[in-house]
Structure formats: structure tokens, C-alpha cells
């Protein structure tokens, strides 16, 4: 783990420590990661439907991702990793914070799910030469220190013909108001200091990173919050939270 941290070219050390301190809270649906639990159905729908379309699967099957190899970068407590495993995928969960990985592995064991959790960075895994059908980059990009190096490592993990799904925050006045000031300070959805707005990434910048690594962008969708229902859904407004899927040529 130490060696992983020392080799950390893409993970910002202060960010890693902040998430590690929250390891036990990951699976509390009403706790500090409550919004992530609420976002989960919408973002998994996006991932599942695109992967099923790309790999020719039936999204209505309860094992729709059976046999696909997936690496989940910045997996935290496994909120996304576990659903992928339950849908039948062979999942590797990566996180720079060992405490999160320990919590994630314990939870998966309790749920009876088999997941390969590693305290590692994408460049560590890429160095082994292993490639995967799918790389998930969900709510990670806005926390990394060097986006270009990060996408080089993440892109190398995808096999030709495979896919990458990215979720992140756009850098707009609206996202500054909603995701930074609103979510952190006013609504207290996430602890203050969770996000640094200057690290937020515009869709055009994200697409440029992906194209440079040999990917073609397939779809872009916004994640929209509905205050009355307290629910998130997929929509066309990409000003704050958005999802992008790309396929490696």
C-alpha cells in the first residue's frame, strides 16, 4: 500500500485520506454517501443499458453482464462494484485508500459476492499488462491530480473493442452553485471540502482525453436531480453531473 501511495502520480494524497476516513460510512444509505445511493439507480441504468447494447446483452436479465471483465476505478466502499458483480460481471475494484478497500472487501464477503479488491492506482494495474472489457471511471476524474496521466493509465486498461464509462462534474457556474456551494455547504449532502471546483471537467475536455487514448465517444447524458421526488434521473442537462460512454477503437 505504501508503495502504491508513493507511486501515486494520479491520486491526490489529501483526497485519498479524506475518503479513507469515511470507510465505515459507505453503506449507510442515510449517511454522508446518501446522495450516492440515490444516484446509483440512474447511473447504473446508464452503464447497464450501454454495456448491454455494446456487448449484445439483454438488460432485463438478472445476469445481464455475465462474464464481462470490469475494473471499477475509485471504487470506494463498492457501491457500484457490488451491483456489477451481482449482474454477473467479473469485477476488480481499485482504490487508492486502503481503508475503503478493507471496508469494501468485508461488505462484499458479507453479501456473498466475489470481487477482486485492490489498493492500487490504475497505473499500477496497467503496468501488469492486463486489459478488461470495461473500465468504470465514476466520480473520480474530478478528484485526480493529473487528468492526462490518469486517462493514459485508465485507457490502457481497456481492451480494443472494450468500453469506458465516465461520470463526473462539469465546470460551469451552475455546477459551482449546485454541486459545490449547494451540495456541500447548504444542503450538507456531502461534507464541505469534498470537491474542488477548479478540478471539474468539461465534457469537451473529457472527450479530448478519451480521443487521445484511442476512444470514440458514444453517448453523453446528464444526471438530473428532482427535488420534489428526491430522485435522480438521466436527462439532457449536462451542466452539473454528467455521464459519458466511449468505445476503444
Amino acid at each position: 500500500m505504501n508503495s502504491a501511495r508513493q507511486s501515486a502520480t494520479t491520486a491526490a494524497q489529501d483526497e485519498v485520506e479524506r475518503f479513507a476516513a469515511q470507510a465505515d460510512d459507505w453503506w449507510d444509505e442515510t449517511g454522508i454517501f446518501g446522495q450516492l445511493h440515490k444516484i446509483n439507480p440512474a447511473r447504473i441504468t446508464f452503464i447497464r443499458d450501454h454495456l448491454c447494447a455494446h456487448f449484445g446483452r439483454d438488460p432485463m436479465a438478472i445476469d445481464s453482464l455475465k462474464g464481462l471483465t470490469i475494473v471499477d476505478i475509485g471504487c470506494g466502499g463498492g457501491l457500484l462494484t457490488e451491483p456489477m458483480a451481482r449482474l454477473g460481471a467479473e469485477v476488480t475494484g481499485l482504490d487508492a485508500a486502503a481503508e475503503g478497500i478493507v471496508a469494501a472487501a468485508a461488505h462484499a464477503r458479507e453479501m456473498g459476492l466475489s470481487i477482486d479488491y485492490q489498493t492500487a492506482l490504475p497505473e499500477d494495474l496497467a503496468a501488469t499488462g492486463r486489459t478488461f472489457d470495461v473500465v468504470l471511471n465514476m466520480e473520480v476524474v474530478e478528484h485526480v491530480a493529473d487528468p492526462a496521466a490518469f486517462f493514459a493509465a485508465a485507457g490502457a486498461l481497456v481492451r480494443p473493442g472494450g468500453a469506458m464509462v465516465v461520470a463526473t462534474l462539469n465546470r460551469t457556474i451552475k455546477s459551482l452553485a449546485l454541486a459545490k456551494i449547494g451540495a456541500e455547504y447548504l444542503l450538507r449532502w456531502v461534507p464541505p471540502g469534498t470537491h474542488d471546483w477548479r478540478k471539474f471537467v468539461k465534457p469537451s475536455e473529457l472527450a479530448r482525453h478519451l480521443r487521445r487514448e484511442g476512444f470514440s465517444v458514444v453517448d453523453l447524458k446528464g444526471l438530473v436531480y428532482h427535488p420534489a421526488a428526491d430522485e435522480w434521473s438521466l436527462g439532457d442537462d449536462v451542466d452539473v453531473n454528467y455521464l459519458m460512454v466511449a468505445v476503444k477503437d
Partner: protein
Amino acid sequence: MAGNLENRHDVLIVGGGFVGGALGCALAGAGLSCLVIDHDDPSAQLDAGFDGRSSAIAAAPRRLLRRLGIWQHVEEKATPIEDIRVADGSSPFFLHYDHTDLGEEPLGHMVENRHLRQAVLASMKTVPRLHHLAPAEAVALDQEGSRVRLTLKDGRTVEAPLVIGCDGRGSWLRSAAEIPLTKWSYEQVGIVCTVRHERSHDNVAHEHFLPSGPFAILPLTDNRSSIVWTEKANLAPALLALPDNAFLEELSWRFGDFLGKLEVTGPRWSYPLSLQFAQRITDRRVALAGDAAQAMHPIAGQGLNLGLRDVAALAEVVVDARRLGLDIGAGKVLDRYASWRRFDSHLMLALTDGLNRLFSNDVAPVRVVRDVGLAAVEHMAPLKAYLMRHAMGEAGNLPRLLKGEAL
């Protein structure tokens, strides 16, 4: 884990009646492995002596039963209700529900419970991944951790991320999860029997509001009707003890002579009437459905329909979550079920309770109000259409199965 029973499942269902059986068919049909645990031997449940009642199945729940392959087994034995005539005692005002007000579909169908039971059991046998354990009894519930665990009477244990209680009014699971129950007793008894009549009922159901409570005549096959006769609790035992000819006489004057000569076929049954509801229908990795969640006065024939609406909502919420790979026993999933059902079941409970209180009353001013009320409802097309739609199970945000769509 003694014995060869598979220990881990996706869902455990306590109670294998109409609600538990239909829910098992729905969930297992979508690919989840379900274990249905019932304390009654399935073959004993098919005996005519087990349950002499009949049920009114509204249009939307019928679509669910068809989707699950259950309706096909009872279709031939079901009687469509094309008209409902409501009369208030001796009053001249009639409230008349005609299905052509709403379209071509009948208002509902009458099915004898023994036939419906047979149909549910037949469908359960055809669904892979649906395991029916009966007779068997759960005796202990452990909700700790990420799986709920049931201990059976024979010492075996079974576990799953979610356990659903479809075990009726006296639900064991509800008590085991320490969910409080609110209950009113009506001081009324429902006397149930079947009569054969000279003339055809022409697929019309009748509800006579008599001072001691509603008296319902519900059309069955072969010139027969099912009687649900609500009587004051202190008078019922004497009525039930009457010799056959005297019982027939008491029944006949309440029934009227519009279908000719009557004959009681089969035994008389009686059920104490009460309204009850669980103070919450979910708990940690636990959900309740059907009578375990809410049981109402049978006045509007909505008990089973409400139970099947629970099935439709719960099956959709659970299957949607599972298709996203989510933990189906998580609080978020169960909350969605609870909030979806809350409005519907509370409205129905209030409606049937209010109707019963209003009509089980012989005070003159109340009589006048309700006579006028019945006539007023008759002349207010939109309100009547709304009440009818609700009786047919059409109101609210409908789950896919109630629309007749695939889960």
C-alpha cells in the same frame, strides 16, 4: 443446515396463499430464486371444506393474474360481473354501476377461492426457481447482518437478502419483526354461503345495505350466487345454529324474490369482521403484503384486490432493483414499495370503513342523508366513474403487472 434444502435464496416468502403464491410466480418468473414457506399442506387446501368463500377479482388484478399464467387456469370457472346494483334497505334509491359506463370490460369476476387456489398452485409448479416448502413453519427470524435468516420448526435455516410476509391477518412475520398492528373490531360477523336460484342472475351483483350491515349477492356459475351476509356479532351465532329451512327463510327475506326460489348449497361459514393494518409495511429486510399488511371490511370486495396490488408494486420494485444489481433488501428499495402503496391502501381502508359505518345504521336522519347520497352519486358521472375505476383497480400510478405488461 440439516437436510438437502437449498439454504440460500434471493427471496423468502412466508405464506403460500393467493398473495404469496402470485408474488412467488412474479419474482421467480423474472429469474430470482424464491422459497415459499407455507404451514398448510397444498393438497389439503384444495379441499372444498378448506375455504368456502369466493373472491371478486377486479380488472387490473385480473390482468396481473393473466400475466402470471394463473388466470388461464380459472377463466372457465369465473363469472363476469357486468352490473352492480346497490340498494339501501327498503329505500327506493338505487345506485347502479354498469360496466358499459367505462368500456367493454366487465367490472370484475367472481371466482370461488378453491378454484383460485388450485390455479395458483398449478402456476407455482411451472415456474423454475420457485421452491414451495409445505407444510413447513418458520419459528425464528434473525434480521442482523446483510441477510435475513429464518429458522424452521425442524431446525433447518434458510436465508436471503429479503423476506416477505404474505401470511395473512395473523401474520407470524409481522409479529416476529415487531411491527405493531392497529385493529378495530366491527362487532359484526360475515356469514358466507352459496345459494342456487331458479332464475339467472344475468351476471349482476347486488349489495343491499341492511341495518345490521351489507348483504351481498355475488354471481357464480350454474345459477349460483355467493352470499356475504354481514350480521351483528350477537345475533350471528343464533342464525348460524338454525336448522336448514329456518336459515333459508332468514336468508330469503334479505335476498328478495327477484331470482325465484332459493336453495342453500354446501356449508355455512362465518368470519368475525375487523379492520386492521400494520403500522408500517416494511422493516429491516422485511416487507409485508396482502392481509398481513392490511385487512379490511369485505364490504367492497377489495381485500384480495389490494393484496394483488401489493404483489404488483413489490414485484416491480424488487425486480427493478435486482436488474440494476442492487441489494433488493436495502432500505431504499423497501421505502419505494411502502410509499407506492401507502396512499392506495389507506384510501381503500378509509373508504370501506366509512361505507360500512354509514350504512350499518338505522337512524332516520342518516338514512335520509344516504338515500340522497346514493341518488346524488348516481347523478354525478365523474365521481361515479372514479369510484368504479377504483373498485376495478384502475386508479393511481399503476405497476406494470396491473396494466397487463410484462414485469
